[in-house]
């Protein structure tokens, strides 16, 4: 058993009380322990608090109960060891060229331009965006923008990539290609990845383990399911359909149990 890396222990989150009335908690008793280098998918229906979990891990929010730790140290505020790939394209800096978007984190460290551009070019190559360095985000397609986001977080060499439905807004073909490329990047860089999705097939395709979340309010993990299919995986791989059915049944039971 590998050492614990990113740990959420009995984490709860609720918005501040309004006019003295406590709001229902978004999250309750959320517990998970990730190992280093793991590809973990957080699967759940829209509005179940997946993004809240990610915001807590990123340090954008503070838990109202429980604690989050990374390698034993409590997570306090955003840090360059945990970088986020956001769902939409509004996280890119529209006034910067692709290469300067990717080099942004390095610039924040005070790295001189020549060096940070050289590094940014390597990561643009990794995400297959060679030759796009001088374009502005408005000149890129949706898939290319998400590639820029991935290159941008990798360039700062974080320990963990937090990905919030990064391919949710893409067409099916682009999405499938980026899923394959992400697995390839993960294999090459051996980063720990937390990947949020509401698509069972996407989770089965990508994850080492899938955390299935219950519906809110007060959502939590219903189950953690290891996916032991060999890689590279295809939707047509033997066992893929069974894994999909298994998780789908679990979600159905979960919902039936609530009613």
């Amino acid at each position, binding site marked *: 058993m590998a050492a614990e890396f990113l740990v959420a222990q009995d984490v709860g989150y609720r918005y501040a009380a309004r006019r003295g009335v406590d709001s229902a908690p978004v999250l309750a008793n959320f517990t998970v322990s990730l190992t280093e280098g793991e590809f973990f998918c957080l699967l759940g229906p829209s509005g179940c608090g997946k993004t809240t979990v990610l915001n807590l891990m990123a340090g954008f929010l503070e838990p109202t109960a429980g604690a989050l730790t990374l390698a034993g140290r409590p997570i306090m505020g955003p840090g360059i060891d945990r970088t986020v790939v956001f769902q939409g394209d*509004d996280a*890119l800096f529209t006034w910067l060229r692709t290469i300067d978007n990717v080099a942004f984190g390095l610039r924040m460290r005070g790295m001189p331009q020549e060096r940070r551009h050289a590094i940014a070019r390597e990561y643009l190559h990794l995400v297959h965006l060679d030759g796009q360095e001088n374009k502005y985000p408005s000149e890129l397609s949706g*898939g290319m923008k998400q590639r820029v986001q991935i290159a941008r977080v990798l360039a700062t060499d974080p320990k963990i990539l937090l990905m919030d439905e990064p391919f949710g807004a893409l067409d099916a073909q682009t999405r499938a290609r980026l899923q394959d490329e992400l697995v390839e990047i993960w294999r090459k860089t051996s980063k720990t990845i937390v990947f949020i999705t509401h698509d069972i097939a996407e989770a089965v395709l990508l994850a080492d383990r899938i955390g299935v979340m219950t519906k809110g309010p007060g959502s939590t993990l219903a189950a953690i399911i290891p996916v032991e299919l060999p890689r590279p995986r295809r939707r047509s791989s033997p066992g893929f359909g069974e894994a999909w059915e298994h998780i789908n049944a679990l979600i159905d039971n979960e919902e039936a149990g609530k009613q």
Partner: protein
Amino acid sequence: MTEPNLAPPALAPDAAPAVHRLRPADLIGKLKTDHLIYAASIIGMIVLWQVVAATFFKPPFFPTPPQVLAAAQEMVASGELFEHIGISMQRILMGFLIGSAIAAPMGLLMGSVPFVRAIFDPYAQFFRFVPSLAWLTPVVLWFGIGEISKVLIIVYTTVFIVLINTMVGVSHIAPNKLRAAACLGATPLKAFLHVTLPATLPFILTGMRLAMGNSFATVVAAEMIAADSGLGYLIFNSRLWMATDKIFVGIVCLGALGLVTDRFFRYLVVRFAHQYGPIE
């Protein structure tokens, strides 16, 4: 005549959706058509002016275009016109630039730091409804009838427009941009300089463009204070002599200068800040 495009599609992994950019040839064609319509519209208006003024009014009440042109020629010959234009433009630009230089940083601060906003917002919200004209008398009493008063009036006009626009700009920054910057290692100060400032720039420039327009309107008021020069003075002083032709020279000059300045400003914006966001 267009040829069908037989070239194979580009081999980019997922090429950007075809952005409909005007090719240079199309652009020139479009500009030509637009300019023809502009020219026709302007000539039509001058003809209409001539007909209405000559048919329905006695000369001093509504001068015809030739009369206004004659008055303008006289004023150009005596050097009077350019003196008025020069001094008005100087006041407008000084007031506009000083006002923008105060308002943009202030708006950025007020937009970004709740504490600063809480201190100054009541005043911004209050005084933006008080037109500069209302301040004429107090300003003259406090600062005399010199240049300072006139420039101050224009500064006042500029400040609130640029300030409010800048604050709106800060509030329009996508939260994900600031979050992205934070997890990429930007300190709050660096996030302000590298994200808030550039993301707000289009709003600041839009505010400046609006303020520029208001500065032209306000210069007439400002030049009521110490009326010995400027287009506002020209317009108001001519009233005493019933010199309507000179009033029209002043009116046409204000409009034309405003238009030219605005076009120039827009050119600068498009030239240097196009990637910051859509600016019209």
